[in-house]
């Protein structure tokens, strides 16, 4: 299968993370697994790249992160659980629309042989 590398994903990663959170809340590692599963193994992401994206989304108020409760009995570092905010949901809807439009326009151009 042809792999999709980080550079090709530039600009789309934020929308992909929002879409992944639309399926339910999750911590960084879990979101990464979800993205890989949704990409059916074609996505090649360096795992650390997810965190700057999450921080930017949180700063913009599109997602909200909370530390998991210490009392859950897990040992080791705490995980931060992210969930989509109402603003994030609206942004995701807008990006989906933009993407459909982009695919339709560019698809028409690329798909039509001269």
């Amino acid at each position, binding site marked *: 299968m042809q792999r999709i590398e980080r550079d090709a994903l530039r600009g789309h990663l934020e929308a992909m993370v929002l879409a992944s959170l639309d399926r339910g809340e999750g911590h960084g*590692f879990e979101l990464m697994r979800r993205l890989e599963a949704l990409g059916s193994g074609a996505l090649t992401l360096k795992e650390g790249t997810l965190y*700057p994206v999450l921080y930017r989304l949180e700063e913009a108020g599109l997602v909200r992160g909370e530390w998991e409760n210490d009392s859950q009995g897990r040992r080791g570092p705490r995980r931060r659980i992210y969930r989509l905010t109402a603003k994030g949901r609206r942004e995701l809807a807008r990006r989906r629309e933009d993407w459909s439009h982009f695919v339709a326009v560019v698809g028409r151009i690329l798909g039509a042989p001269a």
Partner: protein
Amino acid sequence: MKPQMFIESIEQIVTPVRASGMRKDRMREELAAHLVASWEEELERDGNEPAAAERAIRRLGDGVMLSSGLQESVPFLERWLFTPLPFLNCLDDLDFALRRKNSETPLRHAARIAIVMTAAIAALEMIAVPVASVIQARRCSDQPTAALFAAASLMFTAAGGILFTLLFEATIRALREASWLQMRVVVCMALASLFVIGLGLGFVSIVSLGGHPQALFAWSDWPRLLACSLIAPPMLASAARDERSRQRAQCGWGMARALKVTRVQG
């Protein structure tokens, strides 16, 4: 497996980022949680702990690129505020020198802090007291002499330094077991704040001797001073949070326990 390898990688990524300590601690702990989860996954492949750790770190990506990515996620104002300045290194050195050493008991640490604080106040008073005495002499004030106040403040600083340090230590210990709203934490914080306010007001009394002919302060000064002193509780809360966070980082956010548990279960 020892978590040192992970801690070093995390520090290589997070240390260069210009951001508040709170934000950087959050980055550190999240990356630590991620590395532990990756390591557990990698370990299932071949059971080789060091190799699994190396693969987990590699999966995270290039450190320099990650640092720059994290830097871009920091708001501009915060980035600017936390740009390292050369003279601020002195404050870091001072902070490091005043911290409790691993081998130090709380009482010994408190005594050391009290000695440093008393010496610092004494040094300041060596300048302030002669000035206050001259002003007093010029006004022929019948107030107690500046030297008497200075001696009293030194004794108060010494006692206050010990009690404050012990209370601050108790606040951090209480924080480890409870949240900010627990009674024990609130009481420790309130008492520690009172000591800081008392020390501040005491020193202001010394340096302002001779300011008013009949009283150390006019009545109108006190609300202003008390309003200024309200800065003490949030500053202490922030210092306690930083200290607790530093202690968590020092033990690798419990990574050692997590790595050990995984190995036992494996």
